C-alpha cells in the first residue's frame, strides 16, 4: 500500500493508504481528525474544506496520495495553542453563524481563504458569491455573511477587535 507523509496542523505523520483513499478519509479515519466533515459524494457541499499549502480545497476531491508532502490545516488547527480562536471562528460565534455546526468547519475554512484572497475587502454580494461551494441548510446564510464581513476587518488589520453583533 502507498505511504503518504504530510504535515497536518503542524504535526508530520506517515500513513499507509489505499490508492483510492481520499484526503478526507485519511484525516477522519487515519488521523481521527473528525472536525472535517463529509456532507456529499459529488463534491458539492463544502463540508470537507481544508487548507492544503494555504489554499482551500475540498478534501473529498483530493486523493490522499496527492497530498503527499503537503502542509494541511484543518478546523482543529485554527485556534492558537493557548485556545485563542481565529477571528473567523470568533466571528461565527458572535454572529450566530452556525446552528447544527455540520457545515461550519468547511464554511470557516472556505471563508478564511476567501477573505485572504481579497485584501481590499468583500461586499455582501462578493461574500455570497464566494460561498458558492458551501451548503448550509440551517442558517439561510444571513449570519454567515455577516460574520465573514466582520471577520475580514480583523483579519486585514483594519480593526483591532471584532465588531460586536449587538443583541
Amino acid at each position, binding site marked *: 500500500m502507498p505511504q503518504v507523509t504530510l504535515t497536518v496542523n503542524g504535526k508530520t505523520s506517515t500513513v499507509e493508504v489505499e490508492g483510492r483513499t481520499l484526503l478526507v478519509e485519511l484525516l477522519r479515519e487515519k488521523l481521527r481528525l473528525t*472536525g472535517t466533515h463529509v*456532507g456529499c*459524494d459529488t463534491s*458539492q457541499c463544502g463540508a470537507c474544506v481544508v487548507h492544503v499549502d494555504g489554499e482551500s480545497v475540498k478534501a473529498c476531491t483530493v486523493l490522499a496520495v496527492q497530498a503527499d508532502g503537503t502542509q494541511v490545516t484543518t478546523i482543529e488547527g485554527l485556534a492558537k495553542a493557548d485556545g485563542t480562536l481565529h477571528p473567523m*471562528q470568533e466571528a461565527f460565534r458572535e454572529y450566530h453563524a452556525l446552528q*447544527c*455546526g455540520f457545515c461550519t468547519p468547511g464554511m470557516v475554512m472556505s471563508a478564511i481563504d476567501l477573505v485572504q484572497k481579497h485584501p481590499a475587502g468583500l461586499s455582501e454580494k462578493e461574500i455570497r458569491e464566494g460561498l*458558492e461551494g458551501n451548503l448550509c441548510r440551517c442558517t*439561510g446564510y444571513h449570519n454567515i455573511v455577516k460574520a465573514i464581513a466582520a471577520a475580514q476587518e480583523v483579519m486585514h488589520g483594519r480593526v483591532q477587535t471584532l465588531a460586536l453583533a449587538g443583541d
Partner: protein
Amino acid sequence: MNVVTPFEGIGASVRRKEDLRFLSGRGQYTDDINRPGQAYASILRSPHAHATIGGIDIAAARAMPGVVAIFTGADMPDLGGIPCGWQIHNKDGSPMAEPMHPVLAVDKARFVGDAVAVVIAETKAQARDAAEAIEVDYAVLPAVSTVTAATAPGAPLVHDAVAGNICYDWHIGDKAINEAAFAGAAKVVEFDLVNNRLIPNAMEPRAAIGDFDRTTDEYTLYTTSQNPHVIRLLMGAFVLHLPEHKLRVVAPDVGGGFGSKIFHYAEEAIVTWAAGRVCRPVKWTCERTESFMSDAHGRDHVSKARLALDANGKFLALHVQTLANMGAYLSTFATSVPTYLYATLLAGVYTTPSIYAEVKAVFTNTVPVDAYRGAGRPEATFLLERLVDVAARETGIDRIEIRRRNFIPSDAFPYQTPVALQYDSGDYQTTLDAALETAGWASFEERRAEAATRGRLRGIGISTYVEACGIAPSAVVGALGARAGLYEVGTIRVHPTGSVTVLTGTHSHGQGHETTLAQLVTDRLGVPLAQVDVVHGDTAKIPFGMGTYGSRSLAVGGSAMVKAMDKIVAKARRIAAHLMEASVEDVEFDRGTFRVAGTDKTKSWGEICLTAYVPHNYPIEEIEPGLDETAFYDPKNFTYPGGAHICEVEIEPETGITTVVNFTAVDDVGRVINPMIVEGQVQGGVCQGIGQALLEACVYDAEGQLVSGSYMDYQMPRANDLPMVSVATHVTLCTHNPLGVKGCGEVGAIGSPPAVINAVVDALKDYGVRHIEMPATAAKIWGIINAGHRLAAE
C-alpha cells in the same frame, strides 16, 4: 456563585454554549464515533421502483475480501416491521391500510432505494464492493410515482392488499353545513394547486452504529436521531423485540434534522441486529446519493380548494380535497401530517365559519414521505394564502383589506375553529401592521416603477399565517390515533456546590438548546450560565423523553423543566426555612437568594445546595437529602405561533430568474428566551421556504426513477440565491404553558412560501398569470413571459 445574572436569563441574546466545540472541530456526530473492532455495513438498494425479487445470490459477494457477513430479508424472519406511529380512520370509521414494512425487502422492492441486502465487512470500501457483487433476480413491474397516477383507474398496486393504493380516505368538518354555505354564497373561488415534493437534506447524512455487549446482553445504537427514546421504543418494542433496559440509544451531536431524523429507519434496526449477529460493532454511514433515495421526503400534496364568500368579501366556507403522497410505506408520523397537522390548520387566521376537508393518503412507488419542517402546516398555509390572494383579485378587494376583514379579532381568543383547534392567543392585525410598516408596503409602487426603468418586473407578496406547535395533550392526540403520549421530561440535578445539570428528553440538532434551556435555569435559580449544563440525546442518561420536532422543545420540554425547578425551589425553601429557623411560608426565593420575608436574614443558593448533600444540620425526618427533581409535563393545548411574512421579488424577463430582494418576517412566537437564536431559526426557516418556492423540486419520472437524486439535479439554496431576512417579533403570550412560549423552529418555513409565490404572481400581473406552481423556476417564468401574452398595463 450566587451572582444574579439577569443578562444571561430569559430575553438575553447569550452567545451559544455549544459553539466552541463546533467551531474547533470537536463536535461529536455519529460518524465521528468509532467503536473498537467495528465492522462496516453497506446496503444494497433496489434500482427499480417496483419489482418482485425472485432470488438473491450472495455467493460471489460472500467470497470477496474482508466480508464478514451478508444478510437479506430471509435472514430476519423474527423481526417485526417498521411501525407507523399514528393510526388514521377512514370516513366510514374503519382503520387505515397499514401494510407491513419489512426491515429488508423480502419478495418485492417498492421504491428506488428500498433496502434489499446488507453486507458487513472489515472496511467501508470492502462492504461497498461486495454489495455490488450481489446478484438480485428482479422482475420489474409497472410503477406509480405520483398521487394522480396511483389513483387512476387500473393503476398498478404498490401493495396487493391495498385497493386503489388508498391508505385512508379521511375527512374533517361538517359536510352538510359546508354545502349549505356554498349554496348561499355570493361568490365562489375555485383553485387547484400542488405542494411540491421536497428532500430535506440536513447537511449531516444519516449514520448508525450498532454495538452489542456479550457480557450484559445489552445493545447500544448510536444514531442521527431527533428523538432517541422514541427510536428505542419503536425499534425495541416493535422491530427487534428488545426490552428497554437492554437497549441504549444515543443521539450525539446531530447535524440538522428538519423532521427527517424523527423517524425510525430500517438501517438503525439493521446495524443493531447485525451487531448481535456478528458480535462486533457495525457502523453504517449514509452517502448523500443514498440519502436522496432513503431519507423520508416531505410535502407532495395535490389539492382542490373552493372558497365561498359573501358580497362583502367575508369568507363563508372552505372546501378542500387533497391527495397526499405517502410513498411506498408508512413512515413514523406520515399519516398524521396531511390530517391532524394539515386539515386542522385550514382555518388559518380567519373566521371562516365552515370548513370541510377530505384527504386521501396514497401509496406510490417512491421513498416514504413524512414530516419536513412545518409538516402539514406549510401545505395548509400555502393553500390558504394563495387562495386568499386569488379571491382578492377575483373580488376586486385589496389583498390586505380582504385579510383584515376576515381576521380573527384579537379580543376573540380563545377562539374555537371549525376544524378542532382552539387558538389560545394571537394578534394578527398588529403583526400585519408591523410587517407592512417594516417592509414599506405603502411605498412599494415606487419601487416597482423604479425597477421597471431597469427592465425588471418587481412584485410584492404577503402571507398571514398561524400554525400549531408543541403537539398535545396526550389524551387528545391519543383519541385522534397517536400511538404515543406527547409529554416531555426534564430533570434538574443540582450538585452539592450549586452547579446544575439539566437532563432533557428533547434533542438539539441546531436549535441551541444547550444555551436556551440553560438560560431558563439561570433565570429562575440564579445560577450563572457557565455552571449549567444541558444533557440530551442518551437514553442511558435521561429518564425519558419524546424528542424534538414540531417546535415542541421549549413549549413542552422547557415547561417540564419549569415544573422540575418548582419542585427544586419548594424543597430548597424548606431547607432554608430550617436553617434560618423560619416558617416555610415566610421564605422567599429570588434568583439565588433565600430570604425570610421582611428581614435581612438570608441564605445563599450555594449554602442550601451544600446542606442538601451534607445534611449535618438538617430536618432529616421530614426532608430527604439531595436536590434532584424530575418532572413530566403534558401540555394542555397546542401553541399557536403566527405572523405576517412579506416578500419582494424582482424578475429578469430575459432569463426568468427571480431574485428575492427583500424579505420581512414579523412573527409572534410567544415569549422569546434568546432573541439571537429566535432570529436565526426564523432566518433559516424562511430560507428553506424560499428554497421550496423558487428552487427545490423532487422529481420522479413515470417509471419511478428519482430524477433529482443529487446536488446537481436538486437545487439546494446557496448563499447567492438568498436575501438578507429582516426578522422581528411581536409577542402575545401562550396562555397555557408556564413560560408563555409558542415555538419558532418552523414559522419561517410555514409563512414564507406563499409570500414568495404571491410576490412572483404580483410581479407577473400583466401576463395574466393566476398561479404558478412551486418551484417557480426561471424556466417556468421565462415560459410565461415569452408566451407573449402581456396584457395592457392596468
